[in-house]
């Protein structure tokens, strides 16, 4: 539209200045110009013709900025030429469409008034008159179509669908510019629909005036109506205001003082410089003080965290932040946390309460964050207060020692190191877990209550891409024995089907504690187990080779009738009742020499064997002493799921000994 105006002004100026009044009375005048250029504007093949009271001006190619128009044309069938006035009431201006035009030039006051009416309810009115210094130009837009701005916008922006612009743009001869524009019912969308706005209302006020070596400008932008979805953020107009003041010269657009007022969230101070030639931000700063975390999380952060464990949090506290950017990217980030809390709202997997401190990050200097956490929760277990002295140097982060109290013990993290790259992140740490009572831990995790204390050492945990690897052996002390996990790998941990691979061995577990814990009946003795090639998918075993057997050495070995029955029940219904009918039901306790069970799980089937092979079966419990009992299994193959069902029934006490 602006270009159209300029073309017109230029043509009219030519008409006014080149054609003397006397000549106007002549019947036929033709004027030709090969090329006419102005600031950011050019016209080629200009031809003006006046014949029999009709004026026609044609421009072969008109250019303004990046835009080009062919065959621009101004027609005025009846040009009124009077002593003090030149007027055309029903002219037409041809750009991309035919626009009705009327103009009036008052020669005495030297005031030019042009009205363009591209649509019945749309008027662009130009008023050009002498001012204090040079000529003043005012453009009044009434019902302007916002779509007309599309040709001036970069092509990768969403397409403008609707919108009405009202307001005024003025230019004074002294070089001052002012604009007051209002957009109503604006709509835009891209093809994917992921960047779209509807019923958008924006008010813009702009002022600029020349100063010593640049243009000084001020802009106020208020978003007062409608809604916008800009993947992944959805915002509703709440009178968000952006005010900017700065300078503009040939090379740089500078914001000296800027502010974004976000009602309900807070204020952000802004400043920066944009290199117009290189088309890039050379420097920027943003600062926000005491922003309420809940508002920030709900309206801005939440959409970015969809699908992560932070997708649905209850938050509290305040945060202040300052960010600085240079030509090389992020230069510094300063974050000040004031009693920030967050909690996994629905599943209660984790929570941190009253987190306070400062994080002074620099791109090219070593700094230390000082953060104090008052408490928290991990899988519904209470976490005590701890400090987080994180060392930072660019994208390298390390932590010498972190002690997180958990239940009545603590988790010690040592030598944590993280590197964050362009596309990948890597971290590792070692440490130990100590002094946590198994009673409390198992109760909190909803497991059968176990006794003793948990002590585990984590030699080295490495996280690469989405897998977690434990180098060396993970040791856990439980049931008065030791459990050791080797070659532990967790793949796709946060995916839909997490996989775990490991080799596990257990030594000297107290069978009495174990059997009591899982209500399996009474067994005294010691147990060793080796599970090689263990593979869990979605935390359920799909493959392993397990060998469980009584430990070597001297210790009391007894097994109760209930336990024998339960073992037999694992062989399927019917097996247990044979004991009921035998003389064995008169005894409560039996001696045994050794017991064992092997299972090789593959494709849902467990291939079983025992401590010894027999003609048609295998020995699960080999008796010794008086009374003694030997349990023999005959089924070598069992469906894993069925076996799990049987174990569940047995441990839930559904198979009760029926003593007759």
């Amino acid at each position, binding site marked *: 539209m602006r270009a159209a105006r300029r073309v017109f002004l230029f043509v009219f100026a030519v008409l006014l200045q080149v054609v003397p009044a006397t000549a106007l009375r002549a019947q036929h005048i033709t004027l030709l110009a090969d090329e006419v250029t102005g600031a950011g504007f050019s016209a080629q093949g200009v031809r003006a013709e006046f014949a029999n009271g009709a004026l026609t001006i044609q421009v072969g190619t008109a250019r303004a900025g990046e835009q080009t128009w062919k065959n621009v044309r101004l027609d005025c069938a009846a040009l009124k030429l009077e002593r003090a006035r030149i007027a055309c009431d029903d002219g037409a201006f041809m750009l991309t469409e035919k626009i009705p035009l009327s103009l009036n030039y008052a020669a005495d006051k030297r005031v030019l008034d042009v009205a363009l009416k591209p649509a019945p309810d749309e008027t662009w009115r130009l008023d050009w008159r002498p001012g204090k210094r040079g000529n003043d130009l005012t453009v009044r837009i009434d019902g302007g179509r916002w779509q007309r701005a599309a040709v001036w916008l970069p092509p990768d922006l969403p397409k403008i669908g609707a919108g009405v612009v009202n307001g005024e743009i003025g230019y004074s001869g002294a070089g001052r510019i002012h604009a007051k524009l209002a957009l109503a019912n604006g709509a835009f*969308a891209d093809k*994917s*629909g*992921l960047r*779209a*706005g*509807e019923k958008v209302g924006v008010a813009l006020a702009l002022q600029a005036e020349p100063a010593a070596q640049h243009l000084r400008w001020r802009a106020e932008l208020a978003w007062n109506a409608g*809604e*916008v*979805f800009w*993947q*992944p*953020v*959805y915002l509703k107009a709440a009178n968000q205001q952006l005010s900017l003041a700065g300078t503009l010269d040939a090379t740089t657009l500078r914001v000296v003082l800027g502010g974004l007022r976000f009602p309900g969230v807070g204020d952000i101070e802004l400043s920066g410089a944009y290199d117009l030639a290189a088309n890039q931000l050379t420097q920027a700063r943003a600062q926000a003080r005491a922003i309420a975390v809940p508002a920030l999380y709900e309206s801005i952060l939440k*959409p970015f965290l*969809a*699908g992560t464990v932070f997708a649905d949090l209850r938050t509290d506290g305040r945060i202040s932040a300052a960010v600085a950017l240079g030509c090389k990217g992020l230069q510094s980030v300063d974050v000040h946390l004031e009693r920030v809390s967050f909690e996994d709202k629905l599943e209660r997997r984790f929570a941190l309460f009253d987190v306070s401190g400062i994080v002074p990050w620099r791109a090219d200097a070593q700094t230390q964050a000082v953060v104090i956490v008052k408490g928290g929760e991990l899988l519904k277990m209470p976490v005590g207060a701890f400090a987080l002295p994180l060392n930072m140097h660019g994208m390298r982060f390390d932590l010498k020692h972190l002690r997180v109290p958990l239940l009545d013990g603590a988790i010690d993290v040592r030598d944590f190191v993280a590197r964050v790259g362009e596309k990948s992140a890597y971290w590792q740490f070692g440490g130990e877990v100590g002094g946590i009572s198994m009673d409390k831990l198992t109760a909190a995790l909803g497991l059968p209550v176990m006794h003793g204390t948990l002590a585990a050492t984590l030699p080295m945990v490495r996280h690469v891409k989405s897998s977690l690897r434990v180098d060396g052996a993970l040791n856990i002390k439980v049931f008065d024995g030791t459990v050791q996990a080797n070659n532990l790998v967790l793949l796709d941990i946060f*995916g*839909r*089907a997490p*996989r775990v691979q490991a080799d596990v061995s257990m030594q000297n577990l107290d069978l009495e504690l174990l059997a009591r814990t899982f209500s399996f009946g009474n067994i005294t003795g010691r147990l060793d187990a080796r599970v090689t090639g263990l593979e869990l*998918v*979605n*935390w*359920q075993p*799909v493959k392993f080779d397990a060998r469980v057997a009584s430990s070597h050495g001297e210790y009391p070995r007894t097994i109760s009738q209930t336990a024998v029955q339960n073992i037999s029940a694992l062989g399927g219904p019917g097996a247990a009742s044979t004991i009921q009918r035998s003389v064995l039901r008169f005894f409560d306790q039996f001696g045994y020499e050794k017991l064992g069970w092997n299972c090789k799980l593959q*494709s*849902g089937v467990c291939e079983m064997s025992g401590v010894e092979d027999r003609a048609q079966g295998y020995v699960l419990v080999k008796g010794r002493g008086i009374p003694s009992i030997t349990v023999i299994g005959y089924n070598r193959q069992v469906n894993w799921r069925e076996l799990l069902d049987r174990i569940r029934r047995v441990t839930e006490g559904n198979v009760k000994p029926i003593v007759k």
Partner: protein
Amino acid sequence: MKTFRLFEIVLLLALLSLASHAGAQANLEINTPGIAAIQASMQKRHAELAPLYASGAVGLTRDGNVQLRDPSAVPLPQRAAVNGLVAAENQDRAALYREIARANNRPEWEGDIRNTFAQRWIDRAQPGWYYQTAAGAWARK
């Protein structure tokens, strides 16, 4: 003559291996905890996706995924959620195809499994749902 005989023997071998193989592969293994977990997650999500299939906002693509094909059918405030549903569904579908291939010890079958599913999702879609034809255009069942 010699070559002919060689071929004859080999042919027999081929048929034998085929027969034994067909026996072993009569069914694909789909009863694993991994597949069950993905399937459960997709089944839960289907309650939310079904109305979007019916309204034509979301369609079934020719490569075994789903796609937001008509964003204007979804009001702006819901668009982020619908976009999230589509992304989550495609993530699950990719995991499903991969897990089936893995459960059968044939990771290289993932592409073939995806193609098979793509066809079956479309074949079994409800009347009124949109799907992508082999040429990539949208069509309505």
